[in-house]
């Protein structure tokens, strides 16, 4: 049984520096063809200082913070029984190469249904101007060990 007293636990925030080539690498990996993610001149012509990160690049700048939360030994999530159940993102201002993004993660909910444990994490990501660029809700499902 998961420990519901851990609901509300916050994890140390992580800082991610957004690089131009990382945006290109991510855009290629997901098949993004919009030139705002590849072509500096096009991005500048559209009024951006540098390449624009696709919205789902949130996965990259949240990665170390959300990973540290999910791997927290106090939670004891067993990764060979872990499924990604659902995912929500809400986005604010676009993330641009050169931005520095700070992501804080909180364990929002823990519950058990039908022999499975549900962990809901919330990530809040802010840029160097303290604007909230993305709020994520990450729902992980852990199948219980056979008893």
């Amino acid at each position: 049984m998961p420990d519901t007293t851990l609901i509300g636990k916050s994890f140390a925030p992580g800082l991610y520096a957004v690089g131009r080539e990382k945006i290109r690498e991510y855009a290629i990996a997901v098949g993004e063809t919009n030139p705002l993610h590849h072509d500096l001149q096009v991005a500048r012509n559209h009024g951006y200082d540098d390449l624009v990160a696709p919205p789902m690049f949130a996965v990259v700048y949240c990665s170390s913070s959300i990973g540290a939360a999910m791997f927290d030994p106090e939670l004891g999530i067993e990764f060979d029984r872990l499924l990604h159940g659902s995912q929500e993102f809400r986005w604010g201002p676009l993330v641009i190469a050169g931005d520095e993004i700070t992501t804080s993660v909180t364990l929002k909910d823990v519950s058990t249904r039908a022999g499975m444990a549900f962990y809901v994490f919330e990530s809040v990501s802010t840029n160097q101007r303290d604007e909230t660029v993305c709020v994520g809700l990450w729902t992980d499902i852990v199948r219980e060990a056979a008893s």
Partner: protein
Amino acid sequence: MNAGDPIPELKVTADKLTPVRYAGASGDFNPIHVDDEFAQRVGLPGRILHGLWTMAQVARALTDAGGGPHSLERLDVTFRGMALPDREITVTGTVVEVGDGLAKVDVRAEQDGKAIVRGGEADLRL
């Protein structure tokens, strides 16, 4: 955009290296996505695509429909089953409501006629 309008369908087929490339780009090296032998040992047909890669295809269909990355305000999806490389994925969506500068869009993704992302909801800035 009006209620009832479909968004342009997106069709994409990942190749065998897509999960490896995505693992490198995203940092998610779960062996079920990069190691065929491991995947088969845990009962999968082979390495499977990352759910978040599939979600990125849904996001791409939406930003293409909305006119760029700025247009996507919210995306909420539930993952179902698994998606495999070398088989076509189709992303479809329908505008369900328009108001307050936002279009609410219901989205789904399927492969071989089975939903891999279902109950997807998005808000697009108009």
